[in-house]
């Protein structure tokens, strides 16, 4: 079971945010700009911790070195109860597949490379959740730092590295032709 520990001053790998909005698309037509926003109820920051530490140091020194980060990597976190019924994306995507008990068990054991199951210790903070590695976004450094007070807490070391490692494995998978 994963504890949720207090967030630190700096943004850390494993920080869980609530109500984060990202810009999905910007479209310019004649004299009008249409901005499509995607509001995420829950999201986790998955940048490497060393990169986040260096960015924080640079910020404190008012340094503009190229070890600063322009954007942070975030992945949505879904309520597992909605996810298993395929309705976790709301009206963003059509209803997805329901997960039968066998599929749910595979996901809960983190045996499906696409998903990471989050069984939190304190259910009063967050229920069981899941990350879908297929969906990841970036948000500007400025935006996420301004949203620091939207942090619920953070996933501690080892648990967060496990997520990061599985994510890296998933996005580097190779689909060979049949």
């Amino acid at each position, binding site marked *: 079971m994963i504890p949720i520990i*207090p*967030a*630190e*001053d700096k943004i850390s790998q494993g920080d869980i945010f*609530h109500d984060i909005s990202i810009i*999905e698309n910007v479209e*310019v037509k*004649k*004299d*009008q*700009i*249409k*901005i*499509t*926003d*995607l*509001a*995420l*109820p*829950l999201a986790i920051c998955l940048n490497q911790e060393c990169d986040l530490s260096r960015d924080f140091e640079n910020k404190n020194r008012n340094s503009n070195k190229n070890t600063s980060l322009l954007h942070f990597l975030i992945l*949505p976190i879904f*309520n597992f*109860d*909605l996810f298993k019924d395929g*309705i*976790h*994306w*709301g*009206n*963003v995507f059509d209803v997805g597949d329901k997960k039968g008990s066998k599929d749910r068990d595979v996901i809960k054991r983190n045996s499906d490379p696409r998903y990471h199951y989050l069984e939190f210790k304190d259910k009063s*903070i*967050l*229920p069981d959740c899941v990350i879908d590695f297929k969906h990841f976004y970036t948000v500007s450094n400025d935006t996420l730092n301004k949203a*620091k*007070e*939207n*942090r*619920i*807490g953070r996933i501690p070391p080892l648990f967060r590295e496990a997520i990061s490692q599985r994510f890296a494995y998933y996005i580097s998978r190779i689909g060979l032709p049949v």
Partner: protein
Amino acid sequence: MDDSLNVLNEQEETSETNTKVFEFQPGATPKRTYRYCKLIDLEEYDSNNSSGGQN
């Protein structure tokens, strides 16, 4: 004396920050919304907003 006391208090602050009280909404899902902005001519904007120069 008061200033040095303030400095001491700042140094005693922990690195943990307080986070807002959060209440999980079980039915919350991602939502897509739209905003519209008007493109303006930059030169026109600059000339309308520049401060007056010497005559």
